[in-house]
Each structure stands twice: as structure tokens, then as C-alpha cells.
């Protein structure tokens, strides 16, 4: 009775041996990607003042310090506000652009489509510089509003690209059916197009929020007194490493992780329908 089991064991171990190069490659790759994050999170639980080995935790005191830090909490609130509002604006503008380019016979539609997606290829640094110069020229003071505008500039092309790709022939036909049954343009858009695109609208909104949440360069260059979380973290880093920076970094990472997980669950649910 032992034989079959041990045979399976032998087979499994020989397969493991044969696949050794592949497995070690995978371990190395994932190690390379995730080791910095693991180190960051681990030393956020450090007990002493310096986030380097040996690990002497676990302790939650640095998380407590973050929550007590008034400036950090203000920055967190600013980040959430800018993220939600700029993403909403990005989704609405992206939807309207995609809807008109996909449905109306606009001359030069391909050109406008390219023009809308082009910012995706420009580095954030260049966009930030352009925004800074433009705001200065126009006399618009640097504030959270300008940060929000900057985030719309980077996220709207993304929302447009996602939504445009979802407005295929089938959906066009369903809209045609609605029109045939007597719906006028606004009714078609609100009663058919938007509900049918709901998963894509939500996905592009969530992606925009995560991008805005992590964005540093634009937020740094076009903000002044009120800053977002990444900018606040950066000014904290200038005074040297301590486990508090690790703790706030871990928090930022966790929020992004949860949001992306949420998005993934939503997308897999929609696929099943």
C-alpha cells in the first residue's frame, strides 16, 4: 500500500529536479520585484528608530505616530479628495469623447482619437513642466485644483482608451435597437450606453484613482501649501530614514493593493455574465 504513494513522491521530486532552472528563475524574478516591498513593510514594524537589520519588532508604534501626525493626515485627506474628484472628471470627459468619436461621423475622427491618446506616451515630468509653465503664464496659483487638473490630463486619455475599446459593433447595434424603439439621443445614452458600459466606467474610475493616489512629479511641481500624500512623504524622506516613512509607505501600498484587488474581482465577475 505504500508503493503507489512513494512512487508519486519520487515522480514529484524528479519533476521538481528537472524543473529546477525554471523554478529558480521564477523565484529570482518575484524576489527582485517584491523584496523591496517586503523589506519596506517588514521594517515599518521595527521597534527601534532605525529601519535596518536586525529586526527588533513587531511594533505598531510608527503607525500610531503617522495617525498622530497632523500634516500627514491633511495630506492623506488631500490625496483622497484630489483622487476621487479628478477621476470623476476624467471618466466623464473620457466617456463623452469616446461616445462622440465612436458613434458620430466626425471628420478626422482617427486624428482626434490619436490626439487624445498621445499624452499616454509623454513622461509625467514633461507634462508637469508644461502644466507649470501654462499655469504661471495664465496666472493660476498653484493649489490642489492645479494638481487635480494635472491628474485629469494624465488620466483622461486612459479612461478614453478603455471606454472607446468597449464601444464595439454589438453595443452600437443595441443602441440602434433603442433608437428604433423610439428613444431619443439622450435616452439612448443614459438608459442603454451608460448602463451597458458600467463595468468599464467603474474600472477606468478605479484605475484613475490609483494613478492619482501614487502620482508624485506633477503633484510636487504644481502644488504649494496644500500637498498630496506622496509629496508629504517626500518632504519627510528629506529628513532621513526612519520606520515612520516605512509605515506610511506601507499604508500607501496597501491602499493601492486593495483597490486593484477590488477591480480584479469586479472584472472577473463581469466576465462571467
Amino acid at each position, binding site marked *: 500500500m505504500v508503493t503507489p504513494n512513494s512512487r508519486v513522491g519520487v515522480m514529484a521530486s524528479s519533476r521538481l529536479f528537472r524543473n529546477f532552472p525554471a523554478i529558480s528563475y521564477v523565484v529570482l524574478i518575484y524576489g527582485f520585484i517584491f523584496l523591496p516591498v517586503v523589506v519596506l513593510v517588514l521594517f515599518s514594524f521595527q521597534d527601534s528608530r532605525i529601519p535596518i537589520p536586525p529586526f527588533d519588532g513587531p511594533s505598531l508604534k510608527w503607525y500610531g505616530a503617522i495617525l498622530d501626525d497632523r500634516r500627514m493626515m491633511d495630506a492623506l485627506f488631500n490625496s483622497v479628495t484630489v483622487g476621487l474628484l479628478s477621476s470623476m472628471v476624467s471618466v466623464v470627459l473620457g466617456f463623452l469623447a469616446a461616445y462622440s468619436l465612436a458613434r458620430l461621423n466626425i471628420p478626422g475622427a482617427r486624428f482626434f482619437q490619436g490626439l487624445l491618446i498621445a499624452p499616454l506616451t509623454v513622461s509625467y515630468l514633461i507634462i508637469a513642466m508644461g502644466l507649470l509653465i501654462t499655469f504661471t503664464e495664465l496666472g493660476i496659483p498653484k493649489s490642489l485644483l492645479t494638481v487635480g487638473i494635472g491628474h485629469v490630463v494624465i488620466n483622461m486619455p486612459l479612461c478614453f482608451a478603455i471606454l472607446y475599446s468597449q464601444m464595439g459593433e454589438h453595443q452600437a447595434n443595441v443602441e440602434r435597437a433603442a433608437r*428604433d*424603439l423610439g428613444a431619443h439621443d439622450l435616452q439612448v445614452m443614459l438608459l442603454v450606453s451608460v448602463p451597458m458600459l458600467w463595468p468599464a466606467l467603474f474600472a477606468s474610475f478605479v484605475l484613475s484613482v490609483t494613478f492619482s493616489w501614487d502620482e508624485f512629479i506633477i503633484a510636487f511641481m504644481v502644488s504649494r501649501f496644500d500637498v498630496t500624500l506622496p509629496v508629504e512623504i517626500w518632504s519627510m524622506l528629506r529628513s532621513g530614514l526612519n520606520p515612520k516613512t516605512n509605515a506610511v509607505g506601507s499604508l500607501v501600498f496597501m491602499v493601492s493593493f486593495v483597490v486593484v484587488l477590488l477591480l480584479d474581482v469586479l472584472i472577473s465577475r463581469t466576465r462571467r455574465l
Partner: protein
Amino acid sequence: MTEESVRFLDIGMRFGATVALVGINLSITEGSYVVLLGPSGGGKTTLLNILGGFLEPTSGRIEIKGEDMAGVPAAKRPTATVFQDYALFPHMSIEGNVAFGLKMRKVPRAAREIRVSKALAMVKLGPVAQNRVHELSGGQRQRVALARSLVVEPSVLLLDEPLGALDLKLRRQMQDELKAIQKRVGTTFVHVTHDQEEAMAIADTIVVMNRGSIEDVGTPERVYLRPATRFTANFMGESNILTGRVTEVSGEFVTVATANTNMAVRGTVPVDYEVAISIRPEHLHTEDKSGRIQLGTGYVTEYGFRGTHHQCTVRMERFDTPLRVRLPQSKIPASGEQLTLYVDPDDAVLLDR
């Protein structure tokens, strides 16, 4: 005098340099079931889209119940369309789908509910009214699309290859049901298909279309038994085409000299014209009877059993193309077998072109 529902007057349609429709003139009688039949690219779907208001024709005019439809958008036309992919609203229940058109017409809630449940009962979908679209089978979706369009009581219902996505058995069952529903509601149906069996089974009138123009219009019997053109003869089932020259004209008949024999067929063509005659495979016989004329002899090159008959290919002396023949179930052919073929002159049809 029967009332006219739809009238196409010299409709032409071009997409850039491509000509999709040329000189379409057609009248559709109120309450009839009309099938536009033809191969893909024949222009039948384009014609349907023009009628539905999804395309504006480049020339000509359309009248529905005597009213000019120029510039009237789909939403305002007394037509409703059953789309090929059904185009149901995936985010609504079945009931929601059927109620949509009535909501757009601001029909009060109470009246709406009655009409929706009646429409669902007609297509036998009452029990699944609350289900979502993705929970239904292909046949059920087809019925939802039908109920959704019929509930708004259009003057003309347009069906764009409505059975194309269904498997053969379901397609035959649905076509009977479509016909029955049409007879019950009395609405004019205009149905597009490339399936000639489907067309014959449901149509009151078949309109055969090819390359953007109408080849033939008539009842299924007329179009099948006395096809007007060579295209119709070949597209509606199988046909043998014999060519010959007119040698004599007498009254309603002309005598045509073909490679093997002289045949008197119904028609009016002047002497010396080259003409074509269509004979259906089931109209070729192996035994002589009074009135039948001999077509000559040939030998069997291919044969196969098709359930209702034996299908044979017979190569005839002096004919360029072999003839297709249907032999009765009891007569089992053999390869190389000599056959003498006869035809009733009434079954031979002189084609216009």
C-alpha cells in the same frame, strides 16, 4: 382592393463608388409576409435598413401607408426591427426589454404592464419575464426580440436574418412560429434571409434579390415553379438550364430547338432569339407518358440517396453540361447506367434572362 403598406419608388443606393441598390420598385401589401431572399451582398439588408430608417437612400423614395418617409428617423417611423444579433438590452430583465418601447412612448404604467404580459404570453415567455438576457437560450432571445418589437404595434415589422444564429432544427420550428404569429397579429412582416427553404416555408411573397436589384417577385409556388430568370432558377433550389434558339412562334407558345430536341414552351420571344429553359431535377422522368417529350439518352456519372429521392448526375449526348435528375426512392441507380429522360413541356420554363 388590398391596401398598400410599403412602396419603394426607384430606390438607388451607393456607398462611395460601390453601387448597393439600383432601381428598386416594389409594393408590399398590407398584412402580408414578404421575404427578401438573395445571396450575401445582394442588397437585401441594405434595403431593409433603408426601410427601417437606418440608411438614407441616395435616390428614390419610400412610402409607408402612403406617407413619404424621407428624412423621418428610425425612432419616428411606424417600423420596428428584429436585429440579427437580437441587440437585446443585457442590463434589463426580459420584461424590461419588452417594456422599453412602450416607456419611450410614455404609455401609462397599467396599460404598459398589460401589453407587456400579453406580448410575452404570445411568444410563450411569461414564466421567464423576470430573468436576465444572459440566462436565456438562443431561441428564447429570438422570441424576446420579437416580443419587444411587436409590443409597440408597428405597421411594418422588419426582421434581419432573425433565424440565422439558430441551429437547423430550431430554425425550422421558429419559422413556423413566426408565420403563425404573423397571421395572428396581421402586421406586415418584411424578413431578410439567404435560406431559400426558410423563404418558401414562411413567405406570402418572395422577392429574389441579386447584385442590388430585384430578380423576381411572386408567391413561393410561382417563383419556384416558374422562375423568371436564370439566377432565380438556380438560387431557388436546383435547376437544369438548357439553351437553344427559337424556331417558331404560335400563340402563347414558342418552339425552341435545343441540342437534342425541339420543345414547345409557354412564352413570347421572336424567332431566332437565343433563349434558356429551366427544368427542375424532379421534373425529369425515366418513363414515357402521354404529352411528355424525349430529351435524349445519357449515362449516370454520380448518384446519392437523399431520403426522399435519389439524386443523380446524368451526362447527356450532345449536351455541354450534365443534367441533375431526381429518381424515385424505389429506383436505385447504378454508375454508368443508361437512362432515357422525358419531360412534360408544361414543366419546362422559358427564362426572361
